[in-house]
């Protein structure tokens, strides 16, 4: 059984396979921020960060960090050949205008109709939404990368979101440590399952109704050199 941290990497690695060569991608915080480590050879993605940079390069060594060259998670990054800077208005025009090929984001809940809840926790005053709503409304493909259940074991794939929505019907793919689902014509379809879990168990951990792709892809997920 992988550790919690390993599970985050397992999800990120599988989410990375959803990206195509040449994609302009915006990665959310949390698990999505790990995705860039797992982009397969032969696939080059182009990272966009909503604070106004395209072609975001890798993190610098601490002594080279520039507090004014950061990504949207406020982490120091670097330039690549072809990096460009722009104001936040143009950055969100890219997002909302459908110019970002894909985004990988975390979520608290995803509904069986593709609604996403990712910003507000019940019973807590949440005073931050950031760019999440614009991102999921605008990106051509919205890949949700999240653990299959909450820490308490409650399903996060649900018939209807009970938490405040980030957007309605915008999820395209959901990648968890156990499975991959795609939304096809507005219906949730299970397309891939890990070989460490059986279908009955997956159904028990998934409150949302879903259809199944035939044949269902069964893959080995627990393998790998997880950090």
């Amino acid at each position: 059984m992988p550790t919690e941290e390993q599970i985050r990497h397992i999800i990120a690695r599988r989410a990375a396979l959803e990206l195509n060569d040449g994609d302009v991608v915006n990665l959310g915080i949390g698990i999505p921020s790990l995705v860039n480590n797992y982009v397969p050879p032969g696939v080059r993605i182009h990272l966009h960060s909503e604070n106004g940079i395209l072609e975001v390069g890798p993190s610098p060594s601490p002594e080279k960090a520039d507090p004014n060259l950061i990504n949207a998670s406020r982490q120091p990054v670097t330039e690549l050949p072809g990096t460009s800077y722009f104001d936040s208005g143009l950055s969100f025009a890219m997002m909302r205008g459908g110019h970002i090929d894909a985004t990988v984001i975390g979520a608290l809940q995803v509904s069986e109709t593709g609604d996403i809840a990712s910003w507000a926790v019940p019973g807590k005053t949440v005073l931050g939404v950031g760019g999440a709503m614009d991102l999921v409304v605008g990106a051509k493909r919205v890949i949700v990368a999240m653990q299959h259940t909450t820490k308490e074991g409650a399903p996060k794939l649900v018939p209807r979101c009970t938490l405040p929505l980030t957007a309605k019907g915008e999820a395209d793919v959901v990648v968890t440590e156990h499975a991959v689902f795609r939304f096809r014509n507005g219906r949730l379809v299970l397309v891939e399952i890990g070989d460490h879990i059986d279908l009955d168990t997956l159904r028990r951990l998934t409150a949302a109704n879903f259809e199944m792709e035939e044949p269902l892809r069964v893959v080995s997920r627990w393998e790998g050199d997880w950090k």
Partner: protein
Amino acid sequence: MPAKFETPREAVRRIRSGATVMVGGFGLSGVPVKLVDALLETPVGDLTVISNNIGTPGGGLGKWLRAGKIKKAIGSYFTTNPDVGRAYLEGKLEVQLMPQGTFCEAIRAGGSGIAAFYTPTAAGTDLAAGKEVREFDGKLYVLERALRADVALIKAYKADELGNLVYYKTARNFNPLMAMAADLTIAEVDEVVPAGALDPECIVTPHVFVDIVVTG
């Protein structure tokens, strides 16, 4: 996706008859003339053209008009080409006239995912006829819808290998806006430079807006 590199002739093959095409330029400055000429050699017609002007008689987009390729023109200033008025009066050309600032803003909105906006321009004039007018803070505003196109043909000065663009003086005009507002953006440039050769602070159109770059 970074831009592909093609010849003008290859690039314009992607334009279909009946398409809506944005074309950059103010007067003849900043018009992608190679792309305009390349399309002339195709059988494509029935185009809706979104461009500030329709060139001059037989110049720039004036060539498309003379070749009978334009069904409808959307822009702000067609007066410099008398062919436009003639075709309009003969019923051969539909014309949609917009204030130039509204034209710009509608294209920017189209590229930015904004469906519509309220502008004070043209409130109380004939160009607002039939449009929704609404009062905000005691002033009248006209509701204008976003403009988008199937293809944008734009002119830039230099592209890098990814398709990032910079422009040249007042040839910039509508080009960066149109680059954002089409399903397919084709940029004609004078020169292609290596990635990293353009100052990251000075790139006007990041490559995310550019699909195809053409030179010669």
